């Protein structure tokens, strides 16, 4: 769920940009370090970013018939770890704003914080906590939580910007949560299933590529993915 261009008041837009900036700078440093160590990471990260962008062109058969699409941040965070995802997610959001008119430049900071920072960290945290659980469960929970955390954060950002005159922040939060729950909750479930299918298909078809993934992202991904 991207906040549209110009939707947030200027102070909020600037504030969220300031909040998101350190994560993105940290991510940029991670990527720079990665590319210095292995020059091929540049192309692989570019391909992964493009994949995330293209995922947003995949319309999911959502319950409400609306055009929800997967955010891809959950799987990305599991595969690449959240810091790298923060930078990749930022570039993807920029591409979505400029190539699909989805999201915006002034609301980029707010969208980066919910979609590329908080969602991935929450999803990745759950995935790590469920290390002992079957892989499918860990991936499903990780991806679904990344989606839900993103949606709750966006609703919170909107509620903070537009508190209800009578019931205040809480009333407003409940309303924004309610209005977007119709599309976002089924989306989280469907994307969780899709994430499991994606990882399962990758395990059966793409052994060498997954080995490459582990090398780029996190050394223990390969062990976890293959052995679990």
């Amino acid at each position: 769920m991207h906040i549209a261009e110009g939707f947030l008041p200027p102070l909020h837009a600037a504030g969220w940009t300031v909040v998101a900036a350190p994560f993105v700078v940290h991510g940029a440093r991670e990527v720079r370090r990665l590319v210095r160590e292995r020059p091929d990471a540049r192309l692989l990260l570019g391909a992964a970013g493009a994949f995330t962008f293209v995922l947003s062109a995949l319309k999911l058969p959502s319950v409400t018939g609306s055009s929800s699409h997967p955010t891809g941040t959950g799987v990305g965070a599991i595969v690449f770890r959240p810091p790298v995802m923060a930078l990749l997610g930022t570039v993807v959001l920029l591409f979505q704003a400029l190539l699909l008119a989805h999201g915006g430049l002034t609301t980029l900071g707010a969208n980066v914080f919910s979609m590329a920072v908080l969602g991935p960290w929450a999803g990745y945290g759950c995935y790590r906590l469920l290390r002992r659980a079957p892989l499918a469960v860990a991936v499903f929970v990780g991806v679904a939580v990344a989606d839900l955390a993103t949606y709750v954060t966006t609703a919170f950002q909107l509620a903070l910007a537009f508190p209800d005159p009578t019931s205040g922040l809480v009333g407003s939060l409940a309303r924004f949560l309610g209005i977007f729950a119709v599309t976002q909750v089924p989306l989280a479930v469907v994307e969780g299933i899709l994430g499991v299918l994606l990882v399962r298909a990758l395990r059966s078809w793409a052994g060498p590529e997954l080995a490459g993934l582990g090398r780029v992202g996190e050394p223990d991904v390969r062990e976890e993915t293959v052995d679990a």
Partner: protein
Amino acid sequence: MARLAIDDAAWGNRWRTRSTGEKALLALGLLLVAVTTREPGVSAAVLVVAVTCALAQARVPWRTYLRVVLAPATFVVLGAASIAVTVGSGTGDAVWSAGPVAVTEATLARAAEVLGRSLAATSAMALLATTTPLVDLVAGMRRLRVPEAVVDVAEVMYRFVFLLLDTLATVREAQASRLGYGGGRAARRSLGMLASTVFVRAWTRAQRLEDGLAGRGGTGSLRTLAADRPVSVPFVLVSGAVLAVLSTWSVVG
């Protein structure tokens, strides 16, 4: 080859040969004015300037431009409707009410303000998106000292987006022609396979590209020669004047 309407417009409009800097100055300036203003008149003026520049000057196809401006419509309308409605007691000046739910003049005014701001800001952003190819903007970021590694990743991404959209369309067609989307269960399975095929293709293509580059001794960044586009002084002066007038109007009110 897969195409995106905005990208097509960005490569084919009359402002294609203008320097990235001057287009960014005008569009981002308009965007800044649109987001910060509280005057409905200024919002309307930004909208008029952006639409005039895009359609009359740059000759962006009006369908593309309209689609860009209306793309976030669902979100904006839902969001604005949610702002207009208030729940709870103490709604004295209700314009409309049903039980605990009410629409007051204050909330209605705020929703209208958000609608106007979104529309004006989107039209300004659309001016940049439909007149400047994304690669030009990425090259501009390199000049603004964004880390080289980040710019490289963005450039590779731009190239891969179109390759992957092609793969996506082809695989999807093949699945659909085998009734892969016939039912809910099959559709979910097909989607999982589609996503993973596209992922594996992206991955192997990136590795092949890397092998090809490594074989030619390429280790550094993938820089290309940018066309020399001098900044047009009249364009900058006129843009500056328009922005000055709009921001003064916005501040003075």
